[in-house]
């Protein structure tokens, strides 16, 4: 154990506190705003003491937004459902396609394998808007515009390269001889993939899946262009809070709190799993 003086520990504590306050401030502020009405939010100077109200959450959950101009229907819960559905399905499809592909790229060097892997990665290079314009035209011709299938397909541009490249690295880290040892012991190629390679790369697959989920969840522009109101995720749905009678800060904050909750929960849960997976000392030579 390294010896640290009292002063050092105090200074370190202060520094850490400052960093935490800096990074947590927006989230805490949004959390507090979500319990306030527009009037209390827009008070000058801003005050820390206020009377909390659940009106914002009620409005979101019931789907009735009260504004000065009257009652507006708001599809936030539906947007949230869309977000969950789109992200989960996209990541699932990506894992299904990407993990076996990553294994193939890691284990079997065939003619052009590097080129194919790189092409898949290059999907991430093009600016999204550049891709979207032709894609919109194609999708309208194919009848895929404004469908879940079409959106999930486009989301593969986000998820698949990410999963492929991260998971491939994990597979490459597993010594091939471990798999050979299993195969020579009387097991097929597929059993080896399932019983040895997949569990050993598990933490990596979880990490890649989590990252892909967060990217998919936060996506804005694909859904904005390709989906209409009933298929839109929360990122696009939040635009509805900019109403004719002003920006509904309270509801936006409540919406943000609700929409970051799933990713936050998932991240916290997976973090524990990741640490566990890594500390089991996955593979040592």
């Amino acid at each position, binding site marked *: 154990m390294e010896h640290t003086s009292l002063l050092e520990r105090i200074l370190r504590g202060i520094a850490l506190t400052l960093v935490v306050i800096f990074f947590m401030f927006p989230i805490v502020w949004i959390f507090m705003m979500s319990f306030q009405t527009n009037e209390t939010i827009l008070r000058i100077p801003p005050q820390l003491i206020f009377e909390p109200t659940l009106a914002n959450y009620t409005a979101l959950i019931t789907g009735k937004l009260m504004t000065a101009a009257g009652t507006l229907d708001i599809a936030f819960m539906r947007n949230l459902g869309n977000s969950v559905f789109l992200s989960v399905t996209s990541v699932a499809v990506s894992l299904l396609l990407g993990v076996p592909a990553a294994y193939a790229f890691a284990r079997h060097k065939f003619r052009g394998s590097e080129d194919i892997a790189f092409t898949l990665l290059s999907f991430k290079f093009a600016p999204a808007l550049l891709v979207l314009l032709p894609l919109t035209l194609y999708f309208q011709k194919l009848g895929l515009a404004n469908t879940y299938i079409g959106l999930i397909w486009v989301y593969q541009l986000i998820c698949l390269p990410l999963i492929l490249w991260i998971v491939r690295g994990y597979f490459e880290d597993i*010594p*091939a*001889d*471990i798999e*050979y*040892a*299993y*195969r*020579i*012991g*009387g*097991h*097929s*190629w597929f059993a080896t993939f399932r019983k*040895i390679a997949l*569990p*050993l790369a598990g933490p990596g697959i979880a990490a890649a899946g989590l990252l892909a989920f967060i990217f998919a969840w936060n996506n804005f522009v694909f859904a904005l262009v390709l989906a209409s109101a009933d298929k839109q995720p929360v990122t696009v749905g939040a635009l509805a809070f900019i109403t004719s009678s002003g920006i509904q800060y309270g509801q936006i904050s409540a919406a943000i709190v609700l929409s970051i909750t799933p990713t936050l929960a998932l991240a916290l849960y997976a973090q524990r799993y990741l640490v566990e997976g890594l500390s*089991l*000392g*996955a*593979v*040592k*030579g």
Partner: protein
Amino acid sequence: MSLSALTISGVDKFYGPIDRGVHAVKNLTMEIGKGEIVALLGSSGCGKTSTLRMIAGFEEVSRGAISVGGRQVHTLPPVKRNVAMAFEGYSLYPPLTVRENMAFALKAARLPKSEVDAKVASIAKLLEIEDILERYPSSISGGQQQRASLGRALIREADLHLLDEPMGQLEPQLRAVLRGRIKHFIKERGLTAILVTHDQTEANALADRIAVMEGGVLQQFDTPERIKERPANLFTGTFVGEPPMNVFEAYVATAAGRINLKLPDGLSLDYDKDAFSAPVRDQLLSRERVVIGIRPYAVRRSREGVPARVSANQWLGDQTHIAADFAGGSLVLVEHDRTRLDLGAPINVSIDPKNLHVFDQASGKAISHGMELA
């Protein structure tokens, strides 16, 4: 050798395209009998591990055929070849304990649990790993992992046991003990084993026959005794044996009924013509230049003889290795007593023609060993 356990015929291995890639194994042909222990001996990159992996099915055979127990296997996947293997990098399954790792190999064979337990216990005792059976691979030392990996291979009943550097990580004492036990184990059960090693002591101690490989080519495949006494070529001669064979180029000359092997620096080994057997003498006299090899144990110090100058003198506890400047090169001789010789001291050495290995100067092929033709 009643039945052949493994037949390798005309096998080539190319990494990359055939005939253009790296030629790792060249036209290898060998036959191994049932119940034999064979060592593939060679330095790194000589093709011994490639050969083993082709037998196991992890590397494709570029050309040629491999049969195990009379069955062609070189196109089959590893699972169908019925061979067991211990890997150089151990390759234990990290999430399983040592016991599970070893028992795992038997799972596919669907043996009853009591039998599996008994087998694991007996192999663990053999390899002295009883106390670590419940531990995970990441928490044991390299030597222990290696023994667990060896156990995982030996526990299986297979047509062929392939052992890749099976004892490289063990301490010398343990290695010596285990060598004996493993040999006994393999012989008792009539298993056929091929081990890859670069340690000639291990090859000599374990193997019935040794296949010496270099540059992807099988140099010699014979018993340890014959490899030592009758090396087929200059490579085998200098590679096998510790300290290595002394080698010098020599011109063959005759003068006054004597054969002179003229060495560099104006030195010469003179022998009476009758000191050689007739066929060896004829071979020698038919050539102008040869390469002669002398084992360090066969070099004697004598009062008359060819002069040399001591350049190093090491007492190894049970023998003395003396290196001397000789004929433009270095000559090593071994003596069993502790010899006090200062650096630079002049000595004279003589070499009995019975201990002379003669090789062809151009091809390196052996011509004669002592009184016999190769």
